[in-house]
């Protein structure tokens, strides 16, 4: 075999599939955000409004179509981080945020969404098998929304938050020991 062919054989080295799926989700989530909230608003106000409308119309239609189907309802209501429809849920929330007129309405929505994020984190923490990273990222989103709502944490929220943080710690330990166990089993299998 010549050198070039040997080098081509190195193509068998690949990234983990889980990694590729997780990264794709992150990208999709960011694409969803980018459509509605361009980072550098250098265009004139008129252009921006036109762009928002042009983007919003198809999104609203899609959300409306998805919302009427059972699957869509599930996607927009009960999807949790890591679910296939979760990016759609976040996108529909962003639509609401853009449509909200005035700072107080936006702050109200941020508070509403922060409650949703907290509930999602709780649901994830209750699941038997959950990647601790998912709960952590749900908590990060919760804190982000809460900070935008400019409301202080209620006593009840502090307790709920602490419970979830405890669960994350617990799940991380379980998850790590689960991985160790799987590695051990895999090694035993290869020995046989």
């Amino acid at each position, binding site marked *: 075999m010549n050198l070039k062919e040997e*080098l081509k*054989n190195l193509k068998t080295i*690949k*990234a983990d599939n889980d990694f*590729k799926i997780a*990264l*794709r989700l992150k990208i*999709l989530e960011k*694409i969803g955000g980018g459509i509605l909230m361009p980072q550098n608003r250098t265009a004139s106000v008129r252009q921006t409004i036109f762009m928002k409308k042009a983007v919003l119309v*198809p999104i609203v239609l899609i959300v409306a179509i998805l919302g009427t189907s059972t699957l869509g309802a599930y996607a927009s209501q009960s999807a949790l981080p890591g679910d296939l429809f979760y990016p759609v849920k976040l996108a529909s929330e962003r639509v609401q945020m853009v449509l909200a007129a005035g700072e107080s309405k936006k702050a109200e929505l941020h508070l509403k969404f922060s409650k949703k994020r907290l509930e999602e984190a709780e649901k994830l923490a209750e699941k038997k098998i959950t990647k601790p990273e998912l709960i952590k990222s749900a908590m990060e989103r919760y804190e982000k929304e809460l900070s935008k709502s400019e409301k202080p944490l209620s006593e009840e929220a502090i307790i709920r938050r602490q419970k979830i943080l405890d669960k994350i710690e617990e799940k991380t330990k379980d998850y790590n020991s689960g991985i160790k166990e799987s590695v051990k089993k895999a090694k035993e299998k290869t020995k046989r």
Partner: protein
Amino acid sequence: MWYNVINSVFLRLYVMNRDKQNKAISDLMADYNELVDQVFRFVYFKVSGKELAQDLTQDSFLSVLEYLQKEEREEIKNIRAFVFRTARNKVIDYYRKKGRVIYSDEAVLAEEKKFTKDDIAIKQDAKMLIEKLNLLGEGDKEILTMRYVEDLDIKEIAQVIGKSQVAARVQIFRATKKLKKLIEK
């Protein structure tokens, strides 16, 4: 299946509303799986483990996306070359933060590059080849992997390393010669 539907819906929205931005993002996602593997390998040959390579690959893709989403930016003619160039800069930044310098003519970081990675199943022949590659200078190694493992053309390679096409071609020729010598030893 639904995942792909959502993916294509978002991409279609881009095509409808932001032509320039859309094209680059569509290109990025069109061969996503292949491109991720290519960038991952490119980084993996430069750093010491799978996890780190995946982290840097992720950083590269997210940085590229962030750039593509900017309202005012230069047009990206070749997204693959752009992603590779970003990944290359991420690796340089990583080593810079660690207080190391790469891209000298010598095979630097030899102690880290010694092929002891067992985090990915690699055939023995391939392992030996990677060990030989690691004996080359960083520039020679990366140019050979881009050309012969990832099939980048000369124009793309020149864009990634920021040199002329002639210079890239000459470097590939010399690096191939060096690797052959190392293998024959």
